C-alpha cells in the first residue's frame, strides 16, 4: 500500500493536463498512465477471479456456437434435461481438452505424450515472457511501447540471418545469433527511444509506425535472393544451421529448448534492473515524475532512450529465441501476434517481472491448450483469444470483478481522496504552469 500511495502522490505531474498542444492524445495517454497505475494496485484475487469470469464467458460462447446444444435448445421446454446434459458435456470436453493440452494429458498414448503439454506451454511462453518483460520495462517507466511486434521481427530477422548465412563453431554461433537478435531489437526500440529523448516524439506513434516498417522491410528482404539463400522464390528464408539453434532439453518428441533458461534469466535480470540498480531507479523515477526526476539530477533524455533500447533488446531477444528455438525458418508471419500478446502479458503481469513471467506461462498454456481443444472437440481456436481478451479486460476494471463477486471494495478508501486531490492539483497546475510548459511530457520538458 505504501508503494501505491507514493505513486498516487507522484502521479499527475507526469501527465500534465488538457491545454497541451495535441491535447487529445496526451490526455488519452495520461489516462492510460492512470489505468496502468490502477492496475498495479488491484490485488491478485482480482486476477484469479478475472480468469474465472473469462472461463465463464468462454463457456457461454462455446455453448452458443455448438450445434448439438443448439438442437437441444430447440425443444428446451419439452425436455430440458437434454440441454443441460449436452451443455455440461460440451463444456467439460472443451475445458478438459484445454487443460490436457496445456498441463498434463492423462488420455495420451504414452507417458512421454502425457507430459508433453506442459513443455509445450513453456515453449509458447518463452517469447511471450521475453517480449512481455520488454514491454513491462516501458510501462514501469511511463512509456507505452507498442512496438514489440516490430522489435520482435527485427530480432528474429537478424538472428535468422546470422543463423544461416555464417558457418561458425557450435557455441559461438548460437551466442552470435542471439546477440544479433538483441541488437536488432535494441536498434528498432532505440529509434523510438532516441527520437523521444531528442525531439519529444510520441513513442506510441513512432513504435506503431516502426511495426509497419519492420513488417514490410522483412517482406522486401524475403524477396531478395542474397537474403533468403534458398534458390526458390517462395518468401521464406533458409533454415538456420544446427549450430545456431537453441538446443532441445528433452530429446526428440519434445520442442522444449534452452530458451526457457533465457526467459528465466531475463526475468531475474529485469527484476534486478528495476528494483536494485541505479539505472532502474532512474527509469522508474521518470515514469513517476520526469520533472522531479530531472530536478533530482536524473539525465532524463538518456534514461528515456535507454528504456526503449532495453525494452527493444528484450523484444528482439524474444524474436531470436522464437526463431532459433522453434521456428528455424524466417517467414513474413514470424512474429504472429506475439508483439501484441506481449502487451497483454505485461498488463496481466502488472508490469512486474515475476507477474509477467507467470502471465506469459498462462498465455502460453492457453495457446498450447487451444490446439488440442480445437483438434479434439472442434471448438474454434478463437475462444482462446476471447479468454485472453476477457481476462485483460476484467483486470483493467477491478470494480467490475468485485461487483460480480460481491467483494468489498478494497481500494475504495484511497479512491475518493485521490480523485479530489487529483482535481485540485490539476486546477492548481493549470493556473500555475505557463502554457508552453504545460504541454511538456517527460522528454521535452526536461530538455529545457
Amino acid at each position, binding site marked *: 500500500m505504501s508503494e501505491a500511495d507514493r505513486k498516487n502522490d507522484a502521479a499527475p505531474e507526469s501527465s500534465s493536463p488538457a491545454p497541451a498542444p495535441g491535447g487529445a492524445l496526451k490526455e488519452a495517454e495520461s489516462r492510460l498512465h492512470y489505468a496502468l497505475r490502477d492496475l498495479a494496485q488491484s490485488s491478485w484475487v482480482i486476477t484469479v477471479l478475472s480468469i474465472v469470469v473469462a472461463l465463464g464467458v468462454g463457456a457461454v460462447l462455446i455453448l452458443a456456437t*455448438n*450445434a*448439438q446444444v443448439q*438442437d*437441444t*435448445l*430447440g*425443444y*428446451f*421446454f*419439452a*425436455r430440458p434435461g*437434454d440441454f443441460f446434459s*449436452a451443455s455440461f*458435456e*460440451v463444456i467439460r*470436453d*472443451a475445458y478438459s481438452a484445454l487443460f490436457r*493440452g496445456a498441463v498434463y494429458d492423462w488420455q*495420451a*498414448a504414452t507417458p512421454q*505424450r502425457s507430459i508433453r503439454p506442459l513443455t*509445450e506451454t513453456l515453449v*509458447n511462453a518463452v517469447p511471450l515472457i521475453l517480449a512481455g518483460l520488454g514491454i513491462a520495462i516501458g510501462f514501469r517507466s511511463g512509456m507505452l511501447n507498442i512496438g514489440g511486434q516490430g522489435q520482435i521481427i527485427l530480432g528474429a530477422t537478424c538472428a535468422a540471418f546470422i543463423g544461416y548465412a555464417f558457418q561458425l563453431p557450435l557455441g559461438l554461433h548460437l551466442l552470435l545469433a542471439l546477440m544479433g537478435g538483441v541488437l536488432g531489437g535494441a536498434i528498432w526500440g532505440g529509434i523510438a527511444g532516441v527520437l523521444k529523448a531528442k525531439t519529444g516524439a510520441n513513442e506510441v506513434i513512432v513504435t506503431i509506425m516502426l511495426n509497419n516498417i519492420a513488417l514490410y522491410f522483412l*517482406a522486401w528482404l524475403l*524477396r531478395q535472393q542474397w537474403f533468403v539463400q534458398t534458390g*526458390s*522464390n*517462395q*518468401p*521464406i528464408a533458409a*533454415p538456420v544451421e544446427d549450430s545456431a539453434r537453441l538446443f532441445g532439453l528433452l530429446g526428440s518428441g519434445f*520442442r522444449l529448448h534452452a530458451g526457457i533458461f533465457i526467459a528465466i534469466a531475463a526475468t531475474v535480470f529485469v527484476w534486478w534492473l528495476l528494483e536494485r540498480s541505479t539505472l532502474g531507479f532512474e527509469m522508474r523515477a521518470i515514469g513517476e515524475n520526469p520533472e522531479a526526476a530531472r530536478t533530482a539530477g536524473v539525465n532524463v533524455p538518456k534514461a528515456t532512450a535507454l528504456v526503449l533500447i532495453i525494452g527493444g533488446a528484450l523484444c528482439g531477444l524474444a524474436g531470436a529465441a*522464437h526463431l532459433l528455438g*522453434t*521456428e*528455424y*525458418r524466417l*517467414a*513474413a*508471419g*514470424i512474429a*504472429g*501476434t*506475439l508483439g501484441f500478446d506481449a502487451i497483454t502479458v505485461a498488463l496481466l503481469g502488472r508490469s512486474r517481472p515475476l507477474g509477467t513471467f507467470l502471465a506469459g506461462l498462462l498465455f502460453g498454456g492457453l495457446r*498450447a491448450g487451444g*490446439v*488440442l481443444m*480445437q*483438434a*479434439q*472437440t*472442434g471448438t*474454434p*481456436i*478463437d475462444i482462446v*483469444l476471447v479468454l485472453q481478451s476477457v481476462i485483460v479486460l476484467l483486470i483493467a476494471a477491478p470494480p467490475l470483478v468485485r461487483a460480480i463477486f460481491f467483494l468489498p471494495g478494497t481500494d475504495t478508501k484511497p479512491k475518493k481522496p485521490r480523485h479530489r486531490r487529483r482535481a485540485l492539483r490539476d486546477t492548481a497546475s493549470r493556473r500555475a504552469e505557463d502554457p508552453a510548459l504545460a504541454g511538456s511530457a517527460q522528454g521535452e520538458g526536461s530538455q529545457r
Partner: protein
Amino acid sequence: MRPFNPKTLFSLAAVGVLALSACGEAPEEEPENENTETAENGEAAEAPEDVDFTACLVSDAGGWDDQSFNESAYNGLQNAIEDFDIDSNTAESSSEADFGPNVDAMVQQGCDLTFGVGFMLEDAVDEAALANEDLSFGLIDSTFPSDPENGKALVFNTAEAAYLAGYVAAATSETGVVATFGGIQIPSVTVFMDGFADGVDRYNTDNGAEVQLLGWDKESQNGSFSGDFEDQNAGRTLTEQFLAQDADIVMPVAGPVGLGAAAAIEDHGDALLIWVDTDGYESTDYGDIILTSVMKQIPQAVYDTIEEAVAGEFSSEPYIGDLENEGVGLAPFHDYEDEVDGEVKEKIDELIEEIISGETVVESENAPQ
C-alpha cells in the same frame, strides 16, 4: 419511480425469446447419434461402421472462410466426408507458430491422412511425414522438401489456364488495356500473372495487336500487389487506378481482396472482371460482371486424394493439376457467352489442344516443378 425497471425489461425479453424459440418438439430418438461434424465430442464420436478412416486438414493463417484455397480444400474434405462416410478433423492456424503444433495434434488424433494447406506448412507437414511413416500426408500448393514416401504434393500449373484467360481478355478488351494484380508476391499467385501476361502476348503476336498489360511485368517479375489477402479496400484502390488508366478487364489474384476489385468495377460500369481459383459466377455475388474465371480444382484434388487413400491406393506421386487432367481450367463465360467472338472461342479450344500436346509451352519460373 421508473415505470420500467431495466432488469424487468430484460428478463421479460429473455423469457419471450426463450418461449418463442424453445417450444420445439423433442425428437423421438436421442439426438446424440446424429452424424454431424460438430458432434465429435463425447459418445457421439463413434459414428461410421464400415469405413475406419480419418482425413484431416490444417489451414494456414487464412482460415476456412478465406474464399480461396483454404476454403476450397475444406469443401473438398466436406464432399469426401459425405461420400465416403469417413471421420474428419480440422485445425485452423492463427499464426505461423501454430503450424507445427496443429499438424502434431492431427497426428495424435489418429488422422490417417493429413493435408496442410499452403506452402507455409511445408516444413511442418514434411517433418510429420518423416516422423510418422505409417500415416499419409498431403500438401496443397507446395512440394515436400525431402520427398517422403508417405507424402503427396498437390500442386497446380495455373499458368496454363491463366494463359487462356489472358488471351480472352486481350481479345475482348475494347480499350486495348487489361490489368492484373496479386495479393502477396508468392509463386502460387504470380504463376497466374505469368500465364496471363503470356496469353496477352500470344494474342498480340497472333493478331498483330498491341494490347497492353498493367500490373505485372513477367520479365522483371515486378508488379502490383495489394499486400495481403484481406484488405478489400486495397483491391478497390488498385483497381480504380487501373480503370483510370483505361483498363477494361482486371484479373485480381488475391482471394477476398478481389471482391474490392469487383466493387470498383461495378461502380465503373464499363469494365469486366476475371475471377480466380473458383468459378466466380457461382461463388461471388458479382456474376454479372465476371467474364470468366481461372479455376483451380483444389476440392477435386483433395477429394481424389482422400478417395485413393480410403481405397488403400495412396501414392506419393505428386498431383500436378493442368489443362490435360482438368486440374486447372477456364470457367464458362455465363452471361458473356454471346459477347465473346466465336472465333476467339475456337482459338481457345485450339490453344488448349496446343498446350496439352506440348506444342505451346506456358513457361513460368513460378510454376510447380
